[in-house]
């Protein structure tokens, strides 16, 4: 099928034994050498290694190769490696085609014979296709020197600060009225027991002090358009009914509110305390700007409030009941998603009695209860005010369970041990930890576990089956099979703490669609490669940090945020990026001007030229999906790198010999 002039080199990679164990690489190479147009066919242990690439480059020079085929791993892994190698040897990188004989062949099949046959088909198809490849030039796009960070938890804060320290313009968008995220609610952090607020709040105030960070709290991203280097982002800023620039955070308005006592559930304290309709989420909130909750404020409900808050604010005039939501738009070159997680709702595990028995708490509630700035001033008290004499902490609530989430949430063992230590320290209570497996992999984690065990915390290996009330008032009984004693035990306690696991936020799916990225099976955002590109996504210019990518602790979230910031910075500092040249183009003579393609393009990249009466592709806007190409009735619309002829040739060659 290949016309004269083809000088094709075929390279078969063993990938150690990854490919060679299942595919007969020698037979494959011999077969490739017999194909029309193939000048040289070789096998090599590791094609992606330097000697492997040298081999290919030498052959390009020595044999005057004008096309290359490499049968190795997935093109998602090494396509660029070989394109670069070809380019260095003077061959246009798009005169190369990669054959996936690892992920799609040797790793998924057991029969050596069938796998080798499949590899032969795929190599034959590639050899036929590659001859029709044409030299192409990559497109350059400029990178707008600003980054959007979505989510103001510790990951988002750290990413924003890292970028700001490098002098980059950063937009930090947070949904809540303050930044801080989950970490702001924690008491102490494992394994060093430093207080969460002490290490977090300096970073929070630093966000505010950087002139190149624009902080939009109480705001959400509602639209994202464009592509790497030029994302146009629309942010909806919810009205807080307080003018941010005028409020000084003196809290006189809160004091003056017509509600003399706080009356409404305080979200920051998990509803364990009360707040007023005008409030500051917590003392160290950033920004130090109060917010009015229109659901509970009398002025919003009846319009007949005395507005003592406005009076107290006086000349500052920061309170504005007529405030409307604002829409901000901005352009950024890269985006970091740090949208975090939510904890599993304990009512999903009904047999632990959360919401039924008053003294069953979630771990996050206990974090607030033992926190000095929490609702009880750091005194651990039951709902009736008693001090608990015994506490049972149940691990893996909503984790490692087919009925809820199958994954290990990674942090619960450690935070449960931390809570055990803190509860014992504060109350002297007898503390039981019920665990399936104790998972303490991390720097100084195992040591912390040993310390807690030595402190006399009772560690029971077994999954609690049931929580039910005891005979005497207020006691709860945990029924558990102690798998080390091989007996079923009933342990009475005053307080039960549920170590709820981490899961994707309820709206992770919508967020994912907004930013056009993918999710893993559990619903966390999908990274580009689990090992080698853990903060990148399949959408260029969008990076991940923190628990939106999967459960992780604070050190890992911070490390990942730093990595995401570095990746974004690399993009920004390069100033421009090369895009795949797989855009659509029109053969004008063939275009009948039917406009079929125009309506198909979701990016408005195809326009109808009124004067010429032909379709025209705006190359900058084209993302290269090829939908218009497939629809063109006259074959006038074409796609670089995915030409009709190339695909026909590939299909035909796959099937020839049938």
């Amino acid at each position, binding site marked *: 099928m290949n016309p004269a002039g083809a000088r094709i080199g075929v390279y078969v990679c063993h990938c150690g034994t990854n490919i060679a164990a299942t595919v007969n690489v020698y037979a494959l190479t011999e077969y490739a050498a017999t194909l029309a147009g193939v000048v040289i066919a070789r096998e090599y242990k590791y094609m992606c290694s330097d000697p492997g690439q040298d081999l290919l480059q030498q052959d390009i020079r020595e044999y005057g190769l004008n096309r290359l085929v490499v049968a190795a791993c*997935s*093109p*998602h892994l090494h396509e660029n490696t070989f394109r670069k190698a070809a380019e260095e040897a003077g061959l246009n990188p798009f005169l190369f085609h990669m054959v*996936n004989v*690892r*992920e*799609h*062949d040797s*790793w*998924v*099949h*057991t*029969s050596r014979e*069938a*796998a080798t*046959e*499949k590899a032969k*088909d*795929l190599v034959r*198809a590639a050899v036929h296709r590659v001859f029709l490849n044409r030299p192409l030039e990559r497109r350059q796009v400029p990178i707008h020197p600003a980054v959007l960070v979505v989510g103001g938890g510790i990951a988002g804060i750290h990413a924003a600060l890292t970028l700001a320290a490098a002098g980059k313009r950063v937009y930090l968008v947070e949904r809540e009225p303050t930044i801080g995220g989950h970490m702001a609610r924690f008491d102490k952090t494992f394994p060093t027991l430093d207080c969460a607020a002490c290490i977090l709040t300096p970073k929070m105030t630093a966000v505010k002090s950087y002139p190149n960070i624009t902080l939009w709290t109480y705001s959400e991203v509602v639209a994202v358009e464009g592509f790497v280097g030029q994302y146009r982002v629309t942010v909806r800023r919810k009205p807080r009914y307080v003018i941010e620039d005028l409020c000084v955070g003196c809290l006189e308005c809160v004091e003056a509110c017509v509600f003399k006592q706080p009356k409404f559930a305080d979200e920051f304290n998990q509803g364990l305390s009360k707040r007023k309709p005008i409030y500051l989420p917590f003392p160290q909130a950033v920004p130090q700007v109060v917010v009015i909750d229109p659901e509970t404020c009398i002025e919003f409900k009846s319009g007949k409030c005395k507005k003592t808050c406005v009076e107290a604010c006086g000349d500052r005039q920061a309170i504005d009941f007529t405030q409307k939501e604002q829409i901000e738009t901005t352009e950024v070159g890269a985006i970091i998603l740090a949208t975090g997680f939510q904890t599993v709702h304990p009512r999903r595990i009904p047999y632990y009695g959360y919401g039924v028995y008053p003294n069953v708490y979630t771990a996050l509630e206990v974090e607030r209860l033992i926190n000095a700035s929490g609702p009880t001033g750091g005194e651990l008290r039951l709902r009736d005010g008693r001090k608990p004499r015994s506490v049972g902490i149940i691990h893996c609530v909503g984790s490692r369970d087919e009925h809820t989430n199958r994954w290990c949430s990674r942090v619960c063992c450690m935070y449960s041990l931390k809570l055990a230590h803190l509860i014992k320290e504060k109350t002297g209570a007898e503390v039981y930890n019920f665990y399936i497996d104790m998972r303490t992999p991390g720097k100084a984690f195992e040591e912390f576990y040993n310390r807690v065990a030595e402190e006399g915390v009772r560690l029971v290996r077994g999954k609690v089956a049931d929580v039910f009330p005891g005979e005497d008032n207020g006691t709860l009984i945990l029924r558990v099979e102690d798998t080390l004693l091989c007996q079923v035990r009933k342990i009475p306690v005053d307080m039960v703490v549920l170590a709820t696991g981490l899961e994707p936020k309820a709206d992770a799916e919508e967020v994912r*669609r907004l930013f*056009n990225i*993918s*999710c*893993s*099976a559990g619903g966390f955002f*999908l990274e580009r490669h689990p090992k080698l590109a853990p903060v990148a996504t*399949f*959408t260029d210019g969008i990076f991940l940090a923190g628990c939106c990518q999967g459960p992780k602790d604070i050190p890992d979230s911070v490390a990942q945020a730093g990595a995401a910031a570095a990746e974004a910075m690399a993009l920004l500092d390069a100033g421009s990026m090369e895009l795949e040249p*797989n855009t659509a183009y029109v053969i004008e003579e063939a275009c009948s001007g039917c406009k079929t393609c125009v309506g*198909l393009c*979701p*990016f408005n990249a195809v326009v109808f030229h009124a004067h010429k009466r032909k379709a025209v592709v705006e190359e900058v806007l084209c*993302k*290269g*999906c*090829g*939908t218009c*190409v*497939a*629809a063109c009735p006259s074959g006038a619309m074409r*796609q670089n790198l*995915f030409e*009709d002829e190339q*695909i*026909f040739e*590939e*299909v*035909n060659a*796959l*099937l*020839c010999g*049938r």
Partner: protein
Amino acid sequence: MSETSPSSAESANSAFEPKIVAFFCNWCTYLAADLAGTSRLRYAPNIRVVRVMCSGRVDPQFVLDAFAQGADGVLIGGCHPGDCHYQEGNYKALRRFHLLRRTLEQLGVEPERFRLEWISAAEADRLRTVVNEMVEQVRARGPFRPKAAPQFQEVTA
């Protein structure tokens, strides 16, 4: 013109290995197949993947051509509705699929031989299930032999 009896077709099929051409989109189904590889899931070796950027790129002619060249089945894999990397290419693929499937049926291509499946990058297991299922169904149908065009028959009294 004798029809092959079902029993003899079955015995002929036992040694028959169907060949299925699969058009997988770069962002979802191709990645699901990559993940199946890294996860070492085992599935039938009968599919041959052609990578396209989007399921919307699959021109009905590619499918017709594949059958004309002797494919026993054609599988198109794309992102789930709403998940397309290019926003809505998969909807265009779906639109074409329904029309094409009807056309193919009229040409004698049984529906089992032509499938469109939404398989996300995380659904390696689903990829395995779909491929294995399709290979078995096509195997049961036997090799694809295009039906001769129906003969015009004069109606006589």
